[in-house]
């Protein structure tokens, strides 16, 4: 009884202003959980923005940077250069899973359990597909192109020049400033007797071997680290091809290709890895929510499957981040 009169006093005083403070109303017209997911996403956006800005700052501070359409130009089962083709495919996989997610949310609003489950299942498949693509991309970069967190074999020429041939003379191969190169890696036979034969035959690194043969010398020419007429081979086997500078203040001098900006590998693996980790945890959350959907717990709540909506927000955010990772790493 006493509380009744108190409430009455409150409402008499100022009915609209006080109602919000009493907790009876949702000022933003969404539940607590959904609001907090939004604020979590804001903080996560700042984390990613911090990483991407760090990438931009380091890139701006370097005289040269690897050109992305040279670095990311491999495609499964296809030889040669296919600039940006594979990452475009990855983008489509993620966009597709974003669409299936919104369909799941819409079915959730209708309290259609079957529909939610089907569309969420497709979303999980999309997420796994994206992770598979990323695994392939990383494997190629690490295993085939020998990039690591601390070593970046992709460099960009800051001056034009002419490569030297096996005799140390000018070859017909030239390049212009701004083109990106990859330092190939020689395998020093070592204790494997059959190595040279094996390498000339069915070379495991198809493109690499073909490239080397076209030059008139394979990497079998480099049996140990050292200074060769056409290249310097370092302790770890990276082949730094020699060239004569054709323009600029160093014209006429002989130089060898050096490693690219060291930060490139660390930034790439860390930022795409962090995004991939978000995708992975998203898939785990999607699975948990899918199990709950199937159990019928959300239908019993009669709130339009709000949990599906929350994981949907997270999943779309992952897609949103990819838009910017795609822009910064692959397009610019």
């Amino acid at each position, binding site marked *: 009884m006493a509380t009744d009169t108190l409430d009455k006093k409150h409402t008499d005083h100022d009915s609209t202003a006080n109602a919000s403070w009493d907790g009876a109303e949702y000022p933003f*017209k969404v539940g607590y959980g959904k609001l907090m997911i939004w*604020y979590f996403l804001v903080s996560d956006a*700042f984390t990613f923005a911090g990483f991407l800005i760090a990438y931009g700052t380091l890139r*701006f501070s370097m005289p040269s940077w690897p050109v992305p359409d040279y670095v990311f130009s491999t495609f499964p089962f296809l030889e040669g250069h296919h600039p940006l083709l594979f990452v475009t495919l990855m983008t489509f996989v993620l966009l597709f899973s974003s*669409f299936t997610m919104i369909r799941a949310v*819409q079915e959730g609003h209708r309290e259609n359990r079957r529909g939610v489950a089907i569309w969420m299942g497709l979303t999980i498949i999309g997420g796994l597909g994206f992770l598979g693509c990323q695994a392939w991309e990383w494997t190629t970069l690490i295993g085939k192109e020998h990039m690591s967190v601390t070593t970046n074999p992709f460099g960009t020429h800051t001056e034009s020049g002419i490569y030297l041939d096996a005799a140390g003379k000018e070859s017909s191969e030239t390049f212009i400033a701004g083109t990106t190169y990859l330092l190939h890696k020689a395998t020093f036979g070592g204790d494997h007797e059959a190595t040279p034969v094996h390498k000339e035959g069915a070379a495991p690194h198809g493109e690499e071997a073909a490239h080397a043969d076209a030059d008139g010398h394979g990497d079998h020419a480099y049996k140990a680290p050292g200074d060769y007429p056409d290249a310097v081979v370092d302790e770890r086997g990276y082949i730094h091809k020699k060239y004569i500078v054709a323009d600029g203040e160093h014209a006429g001098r002989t130089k060898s290709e050096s490693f690219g900006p060291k930060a490139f590998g660390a930034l790439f693996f860390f930022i795409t890895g962090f995004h991939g980790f978000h995708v992975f945890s998203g898939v785990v959350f999607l699975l948990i929510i899918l199990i709950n959907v199937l159990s019928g717990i959300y239908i019993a709540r009669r709130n339009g499957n709000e949990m599906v909506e929350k994981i949907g927000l997270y999943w*779309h955010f992952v897609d949103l981040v990819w*838009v910017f990772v795609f822009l910064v790493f692959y*397009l610019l």
Partner: protein
Amino acid sequence: MAHDYTGAKKIALKTIIILAVVTVIEVLVALTGKGYIIEGYHAPKVLMNTLMIGMSLYKAYLIVFEFMHMKYEARGLMLSVLLPVCLLIWAIIAFLYEGNAWKGYRQTVQDRSKVEVSR
């Protein structure tokens, strides 16, 4: 409610198609800029980069406002999420400017050591 549902379904389909088309255009713009589409033609970098950044921001708008339903949320929620993000505009300008300054310092150091060697 049923009408709402078909309407929302249509919007979702339309949005995903626009997103896909914009992505393809973005990639084509990137490749044109690097001289792949028209043999040997390198489009001006500033123009291409502006185009790609603009298209990415449009994609971000579509994802946040349609897929994440921001368009249909309360104004207060929208502002409390979007206004803090605007702080990033200054962060980007300040850090890229600083990065560019580092490049200048590196060059100065290099030039100085060159002078010392030749002396």
